[in-house]
C-alpha cells in the first residue's frame, strides 16, 4: 500500500521528532531568558523582552521562518564575505530548530512569566531571610514550584510546536511532510501518504497528552485538591 515508502516516512518521523525536541530546548532557553528579562528591574531589558514577545506573536510562523532562514543566510554570508570566509550554507535542520525555538520562546516567555508570578512572593522572601543566595532561591524554591504552574502552557506550546515543524518542510527540512510530498509525487497517491502522516501527528498528540496528565499528577502531589 505504501509502495515501500514506509521506512522513509518513519525516518522522516525521527527528523520531525528531533527537530521538535531540540526546538523545545531552544525555546525553553529563550523563554526563561525572556521571562527573567520581563521580571527584571532593568527597564531596557523589560522593553526588549516586551518587543520580542509582541513582534513574534504578531506574525505568522511561516513568514518568520522565511525571513529568518533566507534573511539569516544572506546576513551570515555578508559577514563571511567581509571576514574572507568561504560561502556558508545554513543547513535547514539547524535553521529550522533555531527559528522554531526563537518563535516559541516568545510564547514560553509568557508561560514562564505567569508561572514564576504564581509562586507566592513570601516563599522567596523566606528563603532570602534564611540567607540563601539569589540563584539558590531560584533553584531550590522558585523553579521546582513554577514547574507545576507552567505545565499546562508548556504542554500546549509543545503540541503547537510539533505541528509547526510541518512548516519547516517548506524551507527544505527533510521531515515527514517533505518525504510524504516526494512519495506522493512518485506514486500519485497523495491521499494515502498525507493521511498517514496525519495519523502519525495525531498519535504524537495523543501520547503527549497522556504524558502531560502523568506529569501534572506528579508535580501536583503535594497540592490538596478541593472536592465539591
Amino acid at each position, binding site marked *: 500500500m505504501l509502495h515501500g515508502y514506509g521506512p522513509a516516512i518513519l525516518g522522516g518521523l525521527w527528523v520531525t521528532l528531533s527537530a521538535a525536541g531540540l526546538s523545545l530546548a531552544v525555546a525553553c532557553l529563550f523563554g526563561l531568558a525572556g521571562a527573567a528579562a520581563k521580571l527584571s528591574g532593568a527597564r531596557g531589558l523589560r522593553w526588549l523582552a516586551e518587543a520580542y514577545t509582541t*513582534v513574534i506573536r*504578531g*506574525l*505568522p*510562523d*511561516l*513568514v*518568520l521562518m*522565511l*525571513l529568518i532562514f*533566507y*534573511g539569516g*543566510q*544572506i*546576513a551570515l554570508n555578508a559577514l563571511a564575505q567581509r571576514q574572507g570566509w568561504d560561502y556558508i550554507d545554513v543547513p535547514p535542520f539547524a535553521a529550522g530548530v533555531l527559528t522554531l525555538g526563537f518563535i516559541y520562546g516568545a510564547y514560553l516567555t509568557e508561560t514562564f512569566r505567569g508561572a514564576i508570578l504564581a509562586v507566592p512572593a513570601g516563599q522567596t522572601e523566606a528563603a532570602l531571610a534564611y540567607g540563601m543566595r539569589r540563584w539558590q532561591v531560584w533553584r531550590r524554591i522558585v523553579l521546582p514550584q513554577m514547574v507545576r504552574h507552567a505545565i499546562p502552557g508548556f504542554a500546549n506550546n509543545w*503540541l503547537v510546536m510539533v*505541528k*509547526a515543524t*510541518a*512548516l519547516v*518542510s*517548506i524551507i527544505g527540512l527533510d521531515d515527514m*511532510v517533505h518525504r*510524504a*510530498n516526494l512519495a*506522493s509525487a512518485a506514486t*500519485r*497517491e*497523495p*491521499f*494515502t501518504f*498525507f*493521511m498517514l*502522516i*496525519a495519523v502519525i*501527528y*495525531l498519535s504524537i*498528540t*495523543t501520547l503527549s497528552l497522556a504524558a502531560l496528565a502523568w506529569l501534572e499528577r506528579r508535580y501536583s502531589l503535594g497540592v490538596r485538591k478541593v472536592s465539591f
Partner: protein
Amino acid sequence: MDWPVISQNLPAFGQGLVMCLKLLVISLATGFVLSVPLAIARISAHRALAWPVWAFTYVVRGTPLLVQVFIVYYGLAQFQAVRESIAWPLLREAWFCAWLAFSINTTAYTTEIFAGALKATPAGEVEAARAYGLSGWTLYRRILLPSALRRALPQYGNEVVGLMHATSIASTVTLVDVTRVARDVYANHLLPVEAFATAAVIYFALTFLMVGGFKVLEHRFLRHLKPQQAVQR
C-alpha cells in the same frame, strides 16, 4: 537594501492582502455558523451527539493545518470517484480547497472555545431561566448563547488572529496571498529581507488592528463583567 523593488511590487502586495482577507472572512463566517450548533452538541448530555463532535475537534486540532490543506488539495484528487463527482470543478480550485481546509480547522478550534464558554455558564442563570419557564431552544437563544458568546470573545479574538496568520499557508497551494507575493519577490530579485519584512509589516499591522478591534468589542460586550468602581463624589 533595495527598496525601489518593493515599492514597484506594492500593488501586488495589495492584491495579496485582498486574497488574505477574503480567505479569512469566508472561512471565519463558515466556522462561526458551524461552531455554534457543534458546540451545543459537544456539551450535550447525549453521548451520541457529544462524542462525534469531540472526535472531530480532537482529530482536527491534533494534526497540522498544512497537512490538512495538502489532504484536501492534493489528496482528494487521488480518487476517481472524486474526480468524476459534481464537486470536482470546485475541488480542483485552490481557493475552494483552502477555504474548505481553513473552515474545517477553525470550526474545530471555535467549537471548543464556544463549548468551554457554554460550560462556564453559572448554574444559577440556568435555574432562574427554567424558573421563568424557558426551556430548550428559547433557553439557548435568550440566556445561554448571548452570555456564552460574550464570554468567549477574548479567546475567539485569539482564534481570529491565529487564523489570519494561518492564511499564509495558502501560499503553499498556488494562491497568491501576501506570503506568496513575498516569496515571488524573493525568487525574482533575491531580496529576502526586504520581501519578507514587507509581508511581516503587513501581517503585524493586521494583527494590531484586529487586537484593537477585539479590545473595543470586549469593552462593549463584557462591560457587565468588569469590577464595579466606587462612585466618586
